[in-house]
């Protein structure tokens, strides 16, 4: 019986060892225990893959992950969620410290209570499953902060769940990478919260890479305050079932959001990105590009929604979905949408689906490159735009090599 069936059947053991926070989440989940397949953000979901995601046995145990890339982590603050290392770093110009217990509990409690049981189902499931030792809460302030690396991992044959809350104080400038590592035959639920204070700049990377039959649902919840800048680069690959839900709220407007994301699907995989960007004040800015690359019999989904209410005058938003279909059997669904009430705005959206450019391929082949070499170079250029946007060290994470090796 999977976790949802246990919720539906009100399994008595389900409360065992659960915190108050988890119990509140369970109550909320019971309102809507299964995502509604008619809902736009679940409509394209592959039911059997989603079911498999839920079927893994749940575990809160920590296993140290195998972390690829180079071991040199100088000038880097690395946090592995679940490891339970005390974090309290302070220098003249900056500070990274853990949030107080009450701050974490109150924050999550508010989020759970305010959650829409359909739109925020993934967050609710995460908060029901995640125990305290798999929640990390950080407060970051200052400038010249070392690169922050947060690692979330799943373990072979298990379903793991992690939550991270990062509060970025006013005037802070920081680069954060969240690396999601999926072990083979595993499932991972992650909820990430970023509160970006006034006049702050955050460069954020989410890199999710799995192995054979990895499953992941990652929700990203960002609140941006006045004059803040949030730059997000995301990359998802090698997941049998992958889902990234991006919820960004420009709370007061007057903020800047830049997003470049990419998902690569092979074999029979399904990877989806859902982006919901809300402008709740004037003069907001968004530039979003989502790239998909679908091979074999895989399925790639992108759905974006830009919400511009009456208050959000002078919003300037662009959402573009560019997709590359590498096989006649692969499928790409893309739907960038606008919901505009304000009348003085500049908003655009668009989507393209294409195949590898034949003229480019012939040009390279006419110079002696094999079809494989030409395609690799072309893919490298396709990847480069997003990879160069990720705030990660090239020396440590050679993602291009990793991606091309997997092709």
């Amino acid at each position, binding site marked *: 019986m999977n976790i949802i069936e246990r919720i539906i059947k009100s399994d008595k053991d389900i409360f065992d060892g659960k915190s108050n926070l988890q119990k509140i989440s369970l109550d909320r989940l019971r309102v809507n225990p299964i995502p509604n397949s008619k809902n736009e953000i679940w409509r394209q979901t592959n039911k059997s893959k989603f079911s498999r995601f839920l079927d893994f046995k749940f575990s809160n145990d920590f296993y140290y992950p195998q972390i690829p890339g180079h071991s040199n982590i100088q000038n880097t603050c690395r946090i592995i969620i679940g490891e339970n290392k005390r974090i309290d770093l302070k220098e003249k110009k900056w500070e990274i410290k853990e949030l107080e217990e009450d701050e974490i509990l109150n924050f999550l409690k508010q989020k759970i209570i305010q959650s829409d049981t359909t739109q925020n189902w993934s967050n609710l499931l995460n908060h029901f499953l995640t125990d305290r030792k798999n929640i990390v809460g950080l407060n970051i302030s200052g400038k010249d902060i070392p690169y922050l690396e947060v690692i979330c991992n799943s373990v072979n044959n298990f379903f793991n769940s992690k939550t991270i809350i990062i509060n970025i104080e006013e005037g802070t400038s920081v680069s954060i990478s969240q690396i999601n590592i999926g072990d083979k035959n595993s499932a991972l639920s992650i909820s990430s919260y970023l509160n970006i204070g006034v006049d702050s700049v955050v460069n954020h990377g989410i890199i999710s890479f799995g192995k054979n039959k990895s499953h992941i649902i990652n929700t990203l919840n960002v609140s941006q305050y006045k004059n803040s800048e949030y730059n997000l680069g995301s990359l998802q690959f090698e997941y049998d079932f992958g889902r990234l839900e991006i919820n960004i709220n420009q709370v007061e407007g007057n903020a800047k959001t830049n997003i470049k994301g990419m998902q690569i699907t092979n074999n029979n995989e399904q990877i989806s990105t859902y982006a919901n960007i809300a402008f709740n004040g004037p003069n907001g800015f968004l530039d979003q590009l989502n790239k998909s690359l679908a091979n074999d019999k895989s399925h790639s989904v992108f759905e974006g929604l830009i919400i511009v209410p009456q208050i959000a005058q002078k919003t300037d938003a662009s959402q573009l979905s560019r997709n590359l279909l590498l096989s006649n059997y692969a499928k790409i669904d893309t739907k960038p949408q606008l919901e505009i009430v304000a009348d003085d705005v500049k908003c655009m959206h668009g989507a393209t689906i294409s195949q590898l450019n034949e003229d480019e391929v012939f040009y390279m*082949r*006419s*110079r*002696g*490159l*094999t079809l494989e070499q030409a395609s690799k170079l072309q893919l490298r250029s396709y990847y480069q735009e997003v990879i160069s946007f990720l705030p990660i060290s090239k020396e440590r994470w050679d993602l291009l090599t990793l991606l091309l090796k997997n092709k």
Partner: protein
Amino acid sequence: MESKKEIKQPLLEISDLFASTENLTILKGVNIKINSGEIHAIMGRNGCGKSTLSKIIAGHPSYEITSGRIELCGNDIEPLEPEERAQSGIFLGFQYPIEIPGVSNLEFLRVATNARRKFLKKDELDIFEFEDLVKEKLDIVKMDSAFLSRSINQGFSGGEKKRNEILQMALLEPKIAILDETDSGLDIDALRIVASGIKKIANEQSSIILITHYQRLLEEIQPDFVHVMADGKIIKTGDSTLALELEKNGYEWTDEFINKN
């Protein structure tokens, strides 16, 4: 080019070549024989089949040979893929070199050079060895090394793109180079640089086909043979004076020739 004392070897021989694309026959019986050390010019009106001929020799997948034969050094090249033809020594200088954003020119040139070197059973070059080689070749076309770090042809001017083509020719050392309207879009200084580059690369072991509309490139590089193409075949062959005749009289006579035949 140095004096032509060596014994000429047949490099490229095209016999009664018919080819089509999308059920439209474009080449209607092309015959041409090119020996080592020779420079040939193919001239003709737009749409006469010059560029198609160059693409078919290079193996463009959009074109189909319906009959006839193309031999490189006595071997039929029809079964070869475009890259195999390039590795064997066929080089096509594009009329409109393709821009490939994001792909480094240096990396592309290195992979291409090593593919040719591998075919020639020469050692492949590592990045440092290749940089030394490419810097030496840059001088031939008076290009700055900054071009190497840019994406292939992206943001290059028309002249820079053509110089980049000649740089590739210099690196690949082809047996036969087909330069499709390399002179188009060049100002007089750029034309001289490109022409001078071609002359420096030309040697007795290889040959060059210049596809052009105009005499001005041929003033810089004197061809041994000039062929006039019309309606998918070569209708006249002569020496370099034929190009001067064309410059003077134009191509109207080719229509009459085609109508009569």
